[in-house]
Each structure stands twice: as C-alpha cells, then as structure tokens.
C-alpha cells in the first residue's frame, strides 16, 4: 500500500502543481480585472464613449491567468497526461510542483496589484484622454514580474528530467 502511494505521489504532486499554477494566477487575474472593471463601469456611467480605452485597461490584468494556463499546459504535456503518463518518481513530482510555484504566487499577487494600478489608470483615461497609453504602461510595469515568474516556471519545467 505504501509503495503504491509513494509511486503515485510523483504524479499527484505534478498534477497539483499544474492545478495551483492555473488556480492562483487565475484568482489574481480575476481579482485584478474585477478591480479595474469596476472602476471602468463607474467611469462609463459618466463617459460611455471611451469604452475602448476602458476595455484595454480593464483587460490588462488578465495576462496572469493566461500565463498560469500556459504553465499548466506545459506540465500536462511534460507528464504525458494526454497520452501515456510518464512514470514520475516522488522527487520529480515535487520538482514539478515547486516549478509551478513562481507563476502561481507571482501571478496571484501581481494580478491583484496590476488590477489596482489599472483601476487608478481609469481616472487617467477619463480626465486626460490623450495620455491614456501612459496609464497602460504603468500597468504593464507590474506585469514584468509575472513575466519573470512565467519565464522561470517554463525554464524549470523544460529542464526538469522526467522518465
């Protein structure tokens, strides 16, 4: 019984890694877009013609969720769930799990905070319409860290040896 559990632990932890990658970054994006879309709706009640600017700002925090999804797909591909599952040792499973943490936690927090920056950027889009791209750039500053997190996750996933 113990041997079976230990053998499966690898697969369990790898799948868990994929799960947290997509879950937490999705949570971060949801909360982030929630913040900015609420602000956008408030601004639209007064100034509906600028909808496209508001849309762009609102959708900016969505990147983290997409990155988490991509990372999860990398994991699924690596452990061969869509074909013949690779025989993972516990150590390898844990390695994959740990590799997913950067995008999970990084995506989570950067998504939330990028949402707050985007929400503040909505004011710029309303009051200084011509300078709205500057607000977009401000929002993208936070995204840098999600990018770095995704990069490390992908690199780790690519170079972890399995099978």
């Amino acid at each position, binding site marked *: 019984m113990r041997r079976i559990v230990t053998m499966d632990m690898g697969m369990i932890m790898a799948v868990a890694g994929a799960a947290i990658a997509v879950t937490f970054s999705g949570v971060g994006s949801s909360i982030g877009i929630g913040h900015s879309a609420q602000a956008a709706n408030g601004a639209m009640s007064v100034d509906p013609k600028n909808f*496209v600017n508001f*849309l*762009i700002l609102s*959708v*900016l925090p969505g*990147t983290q969720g*997409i*990155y988490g*999804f*991509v990372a999860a*797909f*990398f994991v699924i*591909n690596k452990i061969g769930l*869509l*074909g013949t599952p690779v025989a993972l040792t516990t150590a390898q499973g844990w390695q994959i799990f740990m590799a997913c943490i950067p995008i999970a936690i990084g995506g989570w927090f950067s998504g939330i905070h990028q949402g707050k920056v985007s929400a503040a950027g909505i004011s710029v889009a309303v009051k200084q319409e*011509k300078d709205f*791209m500057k607000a*977009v*750039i401000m929002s*993208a500053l936070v*995204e*840098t860290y999600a*990018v*770095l997190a*995704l*990069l490390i996750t992908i690199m780790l996933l690519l170079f972890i040896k399995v099978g």
Partner: protein
Amino acid sequence: MAVSKLKKIKLVSHNSFRNTMLEVLQRRGAVHVCDLTEEDSAGKKPVNAQAEEEAVSRLNFSLAFLAPYATETGFLEKLSAGKPVLPSQKLSQLVKETDINAIFEQCTRINHDLKLIDQDTRHAHDEIETTAPWKKLNCPLESLGATDSSFIKTFFIKIEALDGFLNASGGLCVHCREIDRAENKAMLLIAAHRSDREKFQETLETFNLEEVSWGELTGTPAQRIKALENRVKELDQKKRDLEAEARSLLKNRSNLEFLCDYYLNAKHKLEIQDCFRETSSSFILEGWIKESGIEALLTDLRQYSNDWAYEILDSDETPPVVMENKPMAAPFEAVTNMYGLPKYDEVDPTPILAPFFFVFFGLCLADGGYGLILTGLAYWALKKFKLPEESRGMVKLGLYCGIATILAGVVTGSWFGDLARYLPFDALTRFLKGLSLFDPIYEPMIFMALALNLGVFHICTGIYTKFSQHLKRQEYSDAFFGQIPWLLLFLAVELYWIISTGYLSPVLGGYLKWVVYFSLGILFFFGGRGTVNPLVRLGKGFLELYESIAYLSDVLSYSRLLALGLASAVIANVINMISSLVLGVPFLGYLMLAAIMLGGHTFNLLINTLGSFIHTSRLQFVEFFPKFFEGGGKTI
C-alpha cells in the same frame, strides 16, 4: 495607402452665390472648414441660428414624446430596411406644409395633462388607502369632531393595549365602540364628555392611541371610497383618451424625423458661416480638402456659376487626418481608430497591422466550423442589411477574421473541436486530418514556438518601422544606434533558436556571439548619445540595456495566442464529449444532444470571438504600436 494628402483651399465669392456654394459644400462634405476668425475677428458677422435651433429642439421634444407610443419594429427589420430616404423636392414641400409649432404645442399639452392625471391618480389611491380601514364606520365624517363639552373622534390602538384601555377608561364618562380590526391595530370610535378631560387625555397617552382626524371631509368612509374609485376610473379614461390622441400623432413621426435632419443641416449651414471673413457683399472661406478631391469640387461649383475664385495655399499648419487605405486593409482602420488616428506626418499603421491582426485572430480562434459561421454571418449581414457606413467597416473586419479563422482551423485540424471523431465519415476525417499541420492540444510546443516566433517577427516589424521613420526624418544616429542593435539581437536570438532545433550548424553560434556582443556594446555605449558626462552616459546606456526585459515581456505576451487557441479548442472538445455522453438517454437523447451542441458551441463562439478580438487588439496596442506609433492626429 496612408494618411491622405490634404491641401488648404481658399474660396472667395459674392453673397449672391453664398447659399448655392454652401449647399454644394455641405452635400459633398469635401472641405473641413477652418475658423478664420479664431485669432482676429476682422470681418466677423454674428450668426443667428436661433430659429433653426428652436425648431430642432421642438422637433426633438416631440419625437422623444412620441417614441414610447410607437410599436417597436423588430431589430432585424430595421436593419434590412435601412434608413428611410426622401427626395429633396418632397422635403421642401414637407418643410412648407408642416406646422412644427402646432405639433409641438399638442405634444406639450398632452404631456402636461398626462402628468397631472398621474398626480391626481396617485393622490386618489393614497386617500383610498388611508380611508380603507374605516370602511365599517357608518357615521358621516362631518359629524365627527368636537363641541364645547364633548367630542366624537376616531382612534387607532394596538390590539394588545385594547383591554387595558377599556378597563382604564371604564370609570370615565366615555363611550367606546370598536369599529374594526386589521393586522395588529384596532379602530375605535370614542365619544367622550369633557368633564374628565385631563384624566382621559392621560389614558389616551398611556395606551398610545393615535388620533385620526378627517379635516373637512364629508360622507361616510364607504361613500368616500366609492367616490374616489369613480374618480380613478374617470382619470384612467381620460388617460386612455390622451394616449389615443398621442398615438394619432404617430403618423407624422417619420416626417418629423426628416424635418429634424433638415433643420439640423440648416443650422450647421448657418453656424459654419461664423468661420468666414465677410465684407458687405462678399465672403472668404478657408479649409482643408483632400488633394484628390479638389478637381471634383471645382467642377461641381462651376456648374452653377463662375462668380467665385479659389486659391490653393501652401500652409505650414498640420492638417487634420483622413485615412485612406486599399480595400484589403481598409476594414482594419477600425482597429487603428480604436487607438487614435496617426499624426499627419506619421506612417499609417493600418496596412502594417492588417496581416498580423488577420493571422493572430485566426490563431486565437482556430476552428474551421466557427470560422465558417463567422464568415457566413458577416457575408449575410453585408448583403442583406443596408448597414450604415460606420458598421460596414466592422462587419467587413468580421468577414476577414472569419476567413483567417477558417484557415487556422484547417491548419490545426479543428472543425467544431474534435467533432469529426464522433461522426462516422472516415474519409472526411482522414481528409481533414491530412490537411492539418499539427494538433494544438497534443503538440502545444509547436503552437507555442509559432506564437513566440510570430511575436518576435511582429516586434521586429515595429522596430523596423521606427527605423525607417527615423531615416525619413534624417535622424540617422537614432536609426542606427537606437533601432538596429535591437534588430540584430532579435535576429541572433532567432538564429540561436534555429541552431538549437538542429537545422543550422552550431558553428554559426560562434559568429553569432560576436553579433550579440556588438549589439549590446552599441546599446551600452550609445544609449546615452547626446550626454556629455561619461558617468551619466554609461548610466543611460545601462538603462537602455534594461529595455531588454521589456522586450522579453513583450515576446512572452504572445504566448496568449497559444492560450486562447487552446482554450477555444479544449472547450469545443468538452462540449462534444458531453453531448456524446447525453446520447445514451432514451428518447430525449437526440434532443438533448442538439440542445447542448447548439448552446455550447454558440457560447464558445461568442466568448472566444470576443476574447480573440480583445487580445489581438491588445497585442497591437500594447506590444506593437508603442514601438513606433504616437497617434494623436486631429480628426476631421
């Protein structure tokens, strides 16, 4: 293929030709009139458009008033009918015959009367509500009240307090009758003598009785309620009559709309004259006109008279921006418009972003079946409905994007997801699979590599556009020290990647190393070109190198193409799988299958089309445009 060339034209004419010239200009819409009197008001004559403005506002009020009474035509009928058209002679007849003021007064009167009726009805209902509890009281209300020595009044009392009150008032000279009960209150009719006034007052307060006074009202409550109900019926009837009168005015509705347009145009014609310089018998106007449209305008004016003169001016001012693109790229102007028009001397990004938008959208949605639906809907909308100009662009864009989706669907072998797997048409399945190059779900790395490479290509196009812009403006140092190193770096990265996949020999890697060092060196040493202080210069150079993180972030952003492509494919597969499970249910199985397939794929199509459009646009606006595009051109 760009921003249209505009020229400044000056027209001078005699007042006798004024109206005709204005007519021609307004009809052609060819000239963007500049305000000559902006800086100095010599020759400015005040313009009085008050009559027209009043006519427009009265018409708008009448139309807004009548709008709720109209029977709604279906959305699709309205689209296929297009906007109503009226020939100009009929319009002049309409203007002469219609009495706008009479219609306006009628609408105002009906509106006012309806408001009063509503108010009265509300009051009546309120009164009915307050009188209703006292239905069972049979004495007329005018008989209630006070005399010198006694009073008869009505009170509310809480039922719990009733017994206590009756006991307490037993000793006093009062007569209490309970009229009725409702909820937690009882209604009492109390007749009392003033001899025990204070004690009685105390008792009233102790048990929290609420007095109900009836003012000057007459009749028993039941009679009052009946009278009020009759009044409400009367008011309702009056309201119906007024509404019928409003509906009878509806037949004028389209005429009113034509008149509104007419008076608006007349108002504009008057107001634009505010921009002219005038003398007692002549006037001058200046404006921007497309170089290609000059001849047509002059020919048109010559048709009517030769009593005018024109001059094409050389102007230093920046003209407003009009975009003109070949038919292939024209629908993508909608995307550029979302961001902002290019400056007059900037390159028009539309033809550059067109192919990328096309490809990226296709990759994001990547399904042959969905593409067919999109293309079909767009084509049908363009043919069947007479759409206004603004919407035509968007629908054409949808058409092109639909075609892109079909192509991507063919390449990925996705037709409503993996529907082909469930159907018994083996030959068809094999044919479709033969056409496809890779399956994104089972080989996501290929898709990822494609997405990132396209991203690099896109970004490099942006950098190259900036490079050629610098060359055009003769800013050679910016071009060669600022843009070329990045292009070289990207080229080197691409070549390294190709080497890693084994298609090129690793020996090349040795040479590429020097290219990379060279580029980094230029960025570091020339990033701060223009600064004298060497430390600041190197600092700026270091910041320039930091830009590489931004470029890295930009390239990784293109992984969303993979994500979105996968998302639509996976959801389609899941819908197919659920439908196939449902098939097992007896009798209802096929019905449920149809429902799930229809609903699920429609939902998937809508969500993913929206997502694809948004993310593809975002890639243009956030990753591509900032490389070379400033925007902010004046609109006409």
